[in-house]
């Protein structure tokens, strides 16, 4: 048993070390490789972690929604485990985005936070996913918990288009997109941005994988507890 647990841990440890090494390199690239932005100066470098953290969060939300729909269709518990794993990791990424945003905003806007459409809808998205995670702690019965969570997750993802399109639909203080159509991002900045996003995606895959294993362990504990109760132990 112990040998099995150790062999399970070894690739995960190597993967963790490689992922954090990539994150450290991404930090170096953001600070020293990317060219300095002329208007904002050094504070613009927060962008290399702020933007990829939201992109990664959107991927996490996509996985959560997919898992929730798959659970409702199949009632297979593995889809609920996928959903909660991605939702929890996505909430961590949203937290990173929401923490780094105000640190950038204070010197640039003069205020830590502006209740405009983009920031408010993003805060609501974070609150919805925190509610999803809290809800799961309130329901003990696994099937009922999975069903309710799937419905809440599908409802929560409806906020994503509002977050994304808010800068076009409303007058906001938030910067307009600098990549894609009409974007003016320096190609060297674009490369560093993608490198940082790659590091964040590697971290996303690593932690979702670990979090999924945790759900499997939890299900095993529930099964063993039921067996112990059945035997009157």
């Amino acid at each position, binding site marked *: 048993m112990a040998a099995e647990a150790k062999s399970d841990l070894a690739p995960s440890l190597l993967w963790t070390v490689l992922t954090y090494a990539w994150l450290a390199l991404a930090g170096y690239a953001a600070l020293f490789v990317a060219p300095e932005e002329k208007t904002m100066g050094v*504070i613009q470098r927060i962008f290399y972690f702020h933007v990829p953290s939201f992109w990664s969060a959107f991927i996490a939300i996509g996985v959560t929604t997919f898992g929730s729909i798959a659970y409702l269709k199949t009632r297979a518990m593995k889809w609920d485990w996928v959903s909660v794993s991605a939702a929890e990791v996505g909430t961590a990424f949203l937290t*990173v985005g929401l923490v780094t945003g105000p640190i950038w905003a204070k010197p640039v806007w003069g205020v830590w936070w502006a209740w405009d459409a983009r920031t408010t809808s993003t805060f609501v998205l974070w609150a919805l996913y925190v509610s999803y995670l809290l809800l799961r702690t309130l329901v003990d019965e696994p099937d009922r918990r999975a069903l309710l969570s799937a419905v809440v997750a599908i409802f929560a993802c409806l906020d994503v288009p509002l977050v994304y399109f808010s800068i076009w639909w409303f007058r906001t203080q938030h910067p307009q997109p600098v990549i894609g159509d009409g974007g003016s991002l320096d190609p060297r900045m674009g490369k560093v941005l993608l490198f940082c996003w790659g590091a964040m995606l590697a971290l996303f895959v690593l932690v979702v994988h*670990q979090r999924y294993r945790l759900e499997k362990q939890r299900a095993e504990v529930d099964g063993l507890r039921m067996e*112990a109760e059945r035997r009157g132990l």
Partner: protein
Amino acid sequence: MKNLNSVFIAFLAVWAVFFAYQFTVGRRMARLQEEIERLKSRLK
């Protein structure tokens, strides 16, 4: 280098959130593994 402190605080915040989160996942996994082994030995 105006605002360099803010950039370092932001980078530290990124690392702190990820480290703290992964640490809690690791701790929860270790606790569950102990519980699994305890229950298995009880059921033997």
